[in-house]
């Protein structure tokens, strides 16, 4: 796929859909990443930050999967593991049916064409010494495109994201606003013609009005180019707007995953419920009286035994400390990891809830 190109090749070779529409574009299987705590070399108990603890999910072709959670829940680490910017301790990534960076699978460089990422800090994402055009053209050149062709391509992409090449092409990052820089970052990611785009809090640092423009741009691009998005955010409104399915993470593990409307409408996991109820409402009749989350924010070093959320959960019980819940499908495509949804878990409230769910289905 990355064969040497003729010097006057106008474009990178198109990427082929190998698996067909039913094959998920991305399968993440049991990703695990623990960090050693700095300075723990001489401590007898070597403390580890359980940043990502056995995360598994799929991303279907053409969808937008939103990943939400508090700071420190492991969303960004997961993104970096998927992008292979960090080596995973264990786990596997399968892209369109091919194992990534494995024997018999897809080479890393090819993977780098299929998957791109847009980061949160638009300024730190750009080399201050390269002009906008040079920054965008760098990637295609790495994959074999001639310099002139790469620059032409960069100019076209700049145009597409709404920045006139004649006016912005020669500018440097410090001469652009935050929103403009993020467009440049999007253009740079698109220069590879990727199939999957990871957006790691890509609009979080922008003003609301600028956010709206960038989000619209992202929607257009997705429709135009048949892209698949992995959208990481802590902003539940934005995720609601963009995502088809949502994945909720807590302390390095997935607690709930499901279609956006169902998840927002009938959240199963207590944490999801707490998150959603914490979102302020415009309706004065629905004031938030009490903080839905009790207890202290989590410490990713040595998480609690059993269910990680039990320290802050209003429904916590002895069964929650004994065993960690696994993801169970409570409705079509809607999975939650909570003992309350498992009639055999030993939690006293479980049978009642399962019955209520069956009735409402």
């Amino acid at each position: 796929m990355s064969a040497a190109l003729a010097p006057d090749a106008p474009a990178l070779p198109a990427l082929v859909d190998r698996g067909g529409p039913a094959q998920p574009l991305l399968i993440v299987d049991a990703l695990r990443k623990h960090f050693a705590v700095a300075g723990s070399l001489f401590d007898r108990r070597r403390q580890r930050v359980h940043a990502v603890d056995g995360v598994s999910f799929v991303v279907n072709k053409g969808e937008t999967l939103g990943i939400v959670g508090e700071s420190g829940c492991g969303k960004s680490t997961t993104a970096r593991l998927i992008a292979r910017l960090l080596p995973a301790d264990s786990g596997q990534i399968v892209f369109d049916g091919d194992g990534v960076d494995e024997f018999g699978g897809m080479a890393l460089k090819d993977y780098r064409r299929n998957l791109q990422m847009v980061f949160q800090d638009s300024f730190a994402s750009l080399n201050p010494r390269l002009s906008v055009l040079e920054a965008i053209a760098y990637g295609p050149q790495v994959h074999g495109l001639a310099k002139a062709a790469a620059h032409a391509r960069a100019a076209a992409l700049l145009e597409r994201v709404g920045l006139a090449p004649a006016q912005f092409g020669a500018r440097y990052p410090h001469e652009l606003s935050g929103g403009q820089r993020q467009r440049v970052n999007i253009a740079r990611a698109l220069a590879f013609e990727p199939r999957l785009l990871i957006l790691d809090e890509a609009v979080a640092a922008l003003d609301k009005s600028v956010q709206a423009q960038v989000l619209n741009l992202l929607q257009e691009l997705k429709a135009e180019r048949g892209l698949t998005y992995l959208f990481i955010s802590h902003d539940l409104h934005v995720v609601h707007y963009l995502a088809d399915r949502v994945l909720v993470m807590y302390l390095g593990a997935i607690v709930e995953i499901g279609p956006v409307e169902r998840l927002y409408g009938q959240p199963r996991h207590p944490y999801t419920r707490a998150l959603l109820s914490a979102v302020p409402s415009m309706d004065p009749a629905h004031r938030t009286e009490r903080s839905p989350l009790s207890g202290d924010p989590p410490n990713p070093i040595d998480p609690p035994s059993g269910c990680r959320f039990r320290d802050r959960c209003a429904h916590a019980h002895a069964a929650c400390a004994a065993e960690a819940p696994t993801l169970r499908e409570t409705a079509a495509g809607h999975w939650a990891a909570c003992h309350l949804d498992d009639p055999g878990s030993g939690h006293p409230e479980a049978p009642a809830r399962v019955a209520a769910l069956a009735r409402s289905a």
Partner: protein
Amino acid sequence: MNARLETALPDALDAPAVPTPASVVPHAAPRRGRWRGAARQLLRDPVTLISALVLLAIVAAALFAPWLAPADPYKASMIRRLLPIGSPEHLLGTDELGRDLLTRLMYGGRLSLLMGVLPVALAFFIGTAIGLVAGYAGGWLNMAIMRTLDVFYAFPSVLLAVAIAGALGPGMSNSLIALTLVFVPQVVRVAESVTTQVRRLDYIDAARLSGAGALSIIRVHVLGNVLGPVFVYATGLVSVSMILASGLSFLGLGVKPPQAEWGLMLNTLRSAIYVNPWVAALPGVMIFATSMGFNLLADGVRSATDVRQ
């Protein structure tokens, strides 16, 4: 022995300022904008301007000595020893062997300036290369390089320079080697520190995501952002190098007679302080003036390229 004092301060005869994160990345202005703005600011500062001009005069006098000098630097005359300043035909007097001092000072400038600039230039290239590797690679390679250099950092610069030069023996090339070896660890420290900071930034991740190899990333993305701060640091080392080099000659470890070099001249003229003290002090004035000129210029460059928030 680690980069302990991250304030913008020099230690005389040892490492000048380690660039603080604020002055380095990620808000460093890029090529064109930065240098134009820096040049403008430099020209506006009178102190920097004057020191630059004085320095230029000294360098020019040294460079064009064979054409500008009034006399032969090696021509001795026993009758005309230690003539005072302002003597006819000898504007700045004569030294202990009757040679014209003005000429000797001009010729001396060539070697003294060379000994000041060359070790720093060599250390700049060697140190940046090592620092880039150590900073980009990280992990055990970084540890191995930095801990080895820490051993050299455990020596005060003067002692290390004297020890190496003393071990190698007198001579200009030996002094050059000694000084370069003294400065390389300091440059590596700065280069490694800046490289490590740059490496953590998102645009390096983005570059890695593009599938580029490490060499390409270092060349395109890291090098340009590292050279600037390291260069600014290195300019501060030039005056230290000059003083050390002349010091080595003063001890008899550097340039050998009858060559003209300011430190060596201070040595040979020492006994003359009882006869003609001001002539004996003149070579040191040149070292002082040049060193101060470099320091003020380096300060000016540093503050001009420092992007204020």
